[in-house]
């Protein structure tokens, strides 16, 4: 809308403190709103790209690679029923190893599949618990049993060799 104030700066107005015409200056009109929506669609499109690229990379077989076996701990240092944290496969991928019996060990990546809070092993209750929103996981399988998480914790395959526990690989989900 043309205005006699256009191109006359400062325009002739003796009001220097309330110089925003609130009824007009900050109005979001229909077209502006549509522009915002289109921009948001663009942001969604661009933000999909990295996910797609990582997925494509995994599909090309890089995800199946076996990681170098990593020693977690000595058998003698972990009592039955206890748990310990370690990093696998990368230095920033937290994981938890739980010794369930003399021979049986289980290990999972311990980022809760809800919002990635760390998951803890509660020995007394025999459950893995995410303290953030009280998610619970079955210790035998990693399947969520209560709370908001819907996906199982990624399992890490371990093997015992020469009195030490090694992390071997991260198990793929079964579809």
């Amino acid at each position: 809308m043309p205005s006699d104030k256009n191109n006359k700066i400062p325009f002739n107005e003796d009001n220097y403190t309330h110089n925003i015409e609130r009824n007009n200056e900050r109005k979001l009109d229909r077209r502006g709103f549509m522009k915002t929506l289109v921009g948001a669609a663009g942001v969604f499109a661009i933000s999909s790209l990295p996910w797609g690229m990582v997925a494509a990379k995994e599909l090309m077989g890089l995800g199946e690679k076996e990681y170098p076996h990593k020693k977690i701990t000595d058998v003698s240092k972990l009592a039955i029923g206890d748990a310990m944290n370690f990093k696998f496969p990368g230095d920033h991928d937290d994981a938890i190893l739980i010794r369930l019996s003399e021979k049986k060990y289980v290990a999972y990546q311990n980022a809760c599949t809800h919002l990635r809070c760390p998951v803890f092993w509660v020995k007394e209750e025999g459950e893995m618990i995410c303290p953030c929103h009280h998610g619970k996981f079955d210790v035998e399988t990693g399947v969520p049993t209560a709370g908001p998480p819907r996906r199982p914790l990624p399992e890490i395959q371990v093997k015992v060799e020469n009195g030490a526990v090694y992390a071997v690989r991260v198990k793929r989900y079964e579809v």
Partner: protein
Amino acid sequence: MKFKFIGVALLCAFLMMNIVFTQFMVHQFYYENYINVLIFGGLNIVVFPLALYTYKKTKYEKA
């Protein structure tokens, strides 16, 4: 509904689709169904030109 708001409604629908596709994409990623990730990511990208086209078609609509 006034005719001039059809574009707004369409764009809102597109954005809703974006949100749904993104949600699916992220979940399928963590389930490691990478084909589905590519499908939903692709849909997300296709929606943007559609939205742009809709905007260009409807920005001058009058009531």
